[in-house]
């Protein structure tokens, strides 16, 4: 079936939206918990970045509907996102925030 002209593409159910909200809440609680637990101090940054990436992906895939939408939308979003990430990493190396070796 063609995507209807003024209607959004098929979207997840209310149950899915609620499940995603629950997962996002749990991950946020875990993030704050990890922040306060001394044991995680040596791996704080990578753990938090992974958790943040999961939250980011869930919102983009389910709430912004990229998972079931046309691939062109994914392309015009992920392309600049990758460029922004590459620029960020390059600048952090350039200005000595990250150091190799």
């Amino acid at each position, binding site marked *: 079936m063609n995507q209807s002209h003024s209607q959004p593409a098929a979207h997840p159910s209310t149950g899915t939206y609620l499940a995603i909200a629950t997962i996002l809440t749990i991950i946020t609680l875990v993030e704050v918990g990890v922040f306060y637990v001394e044991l995680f101090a040596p791996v704080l940054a990578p753990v938090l970045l992974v958790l943040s990436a999961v939250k980011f992906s869930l919102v*983009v895939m389910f*709430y912004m509907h990229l998972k079931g939408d046309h691939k062109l939308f994914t392309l015009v979003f992920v392309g600049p996102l990758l460029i922004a990430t590459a620029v960020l990493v390059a600048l952090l190396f350039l200005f000595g925030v990250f150091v190799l070796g």
Partner: protein
Amino acid sequence: MSHHTATDLDTRKIAFWTFIGSECLLFGTLISTYLIYEGRSTVGPTTREILNIPITSLSTFDLLMSSLAMVLALAAVSRGDVLWSRIWLATTAFLGTVFLGFQYYEFSSFVHEGLTITTNLFGSTFYTLTGFHGGHVAVGVLLLLTLLVRSFQGKLGPEKAMNVEITGLYWHFVDVVWIVIFTVVYLIQSG
């Protein structure tokens, strides 16, 4: 009026995703600038001394729940449920306003503790980054209130669901930017 391309995709939606792509570059630049300069302040207050993680965790939860209300508003408009579309749009706008209240409280307390945009590099980059984000939230609240007014005018039926979806895309993008800021600016830098 038709808004479609040869791909049968809505041109407004393509344009809006392209706009969101450009916003990734804007916020990527602001976050980079913050990370580069945040630790180079020669006078305080610094990140560890001033950021309030419990309060920011609450505002993060508030914004996440606003995203839930937004998708429920879109679902209600799509099925022609006028009452619930108004309830969820109003809830989303309310939660966005609460987030701005949190930000006002945070900025006020920081200024009270001696951190202004001119105090040090941390202050300059922090206020610029979070201020830009707050500005985006404020625009989102205005868009939501506009949709609410259109609903009360009887001009927000299922045929206008794309308008709600596009506003939703903006709102969720503001949410994902905050997900990154909360982790990178607040949790990692304060840890």
